């Protein structure tokens, strides 16, 4: 993986248009909401709820793109587009990969937030 966890151009542009202080708050919101989305993905997978699974992946993709978390966005996008059936065959493997990438994103954002 050659791309950075957070694309700095995207993140800088976000700060410039929305204001650095606001972006800090937005990061806090994301760090509070994203674990819920990851949990939602797991429970939707366990319950076989395709709509909920797709929506959670969609939300995570959308927010990842906002902050420039391109790799996380790509993983979430794949889950959104391939759907529950595909994820069921793959087991929890892809969700684990997603969670791992999220932990990198969370660390990077936390660092940026205090920068």
């Amino acid at each position, binding site marked *: 993986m050659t791309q950075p966890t957070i694309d700095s151009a995207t993140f800088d542009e976000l700060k410039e248009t929305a204001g650095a202080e606001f972006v800090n*708050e937005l990061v806090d919101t994301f760090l509070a909401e994203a674990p819920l989305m990851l949990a939602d993905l797991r429970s939707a997978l366990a319950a076989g709820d395709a709509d909920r699974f797709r*929506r959670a992946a969609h939300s995570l993709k959308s927010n990842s793109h906002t902050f420039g978390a391109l790799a996380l966005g790509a993983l979430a996008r794949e889950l959104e*587009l391939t759907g529950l059936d595909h994820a069921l065959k793959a087991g929890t493997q892809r969700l684990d990969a997603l969670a791992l990438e999220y932990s990198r994103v969370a660390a990077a954002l936390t660092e940026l937030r205090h920068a």
Partner: protein
Amino acid sequence: MRDVRHGAARLLVVDDNKVNRLLLARNLELQGHSVALAENGRVALEMLRRESFDLLLLDIEMPEMDGFQVLEQLAKDLHLRDLPVIVTSSLEGIDNVVRCIELGAEDYLTKPVNPVLLKARIGASLEKKRLRDQQKELVRRFATPEVAQDLQESGFALGGKRVRASVLFSDIRDFTPLAESQPPEETIDLLNTYYTLMFDAISTHGGVVTHIAGDGLMAIFGAPLPLPDHCASAVRAALEMIELVEMFSRERAAAGKPQIRIGIGIASGEMVAGYAGTNERATYTCIGDTVNLAARLEAHTKVARRAILIDGTTRTALGERVMVEPLGPVPFKGKAAAVDVFAIDPSQKR
């Protein structure tokens, strides 16, 4: 409705995702708008029905009620269907964009939304809304509420439909010499007061004024909206018109001004009602023998020296409710057979 010309508008942002909601609201507030938030379609619809907004920013993928369902609900709602909607979504696929536009969305922006693009699209949407509001206001001012409502519900289309209705013509007796004997400003004042009184009498009884020209007017009872007892309504309106003109005339006499009198003709039956003209300029009107007859009856009031003349159809529908004086058959231009004409004494109680 707020004045959105100077850019500031009240917007509703609907998104189930908190980060998206906050970021969109932030961008909009930085552009000077005031923003309210809803977390799904159902909540958004409740807010839209309770409060007034200039524009809706709508996410598609949401629990409870998604954006497609919101667009469908808005299209069905007479009060909300003109609300501009900009869809902001990270849903992929051109079919989703097409579906939103087909359901009535004004625009579709992909998330993350570029703030500059957002500003441009919102500006364009609000400007379009302002023009639409202006147009509605014009329709309201130059058309009657009934015609405005018919236009809003059925849309504009040239052509008419057959209806059963009563048509009323009225004008001021000896208006030309009166107008020539006074300054034009005074004539405008006179006409304005006169029309205010006449519109009031006509609309009180369910009629719609379709034409005014000089000192004359035409009104329809029973179109565009059906009116059960349209003959009696037209006659009651006529009696009230005469009474109001008499009051107005007494006031004028007291102020040393010449008195005025009016003549009214009413005919009832089948006619074609609808929009006539061109696609650019049209009026709501009624056309048919019944309309011509009402105009002839109004002209005949001068010959018969009666204030109100009606045709046989109107007379029959009145029954015993109003005292009617038969004047016998009168040959009218354009009519093969003579027409039975009846006069109504305006001094009787309505």
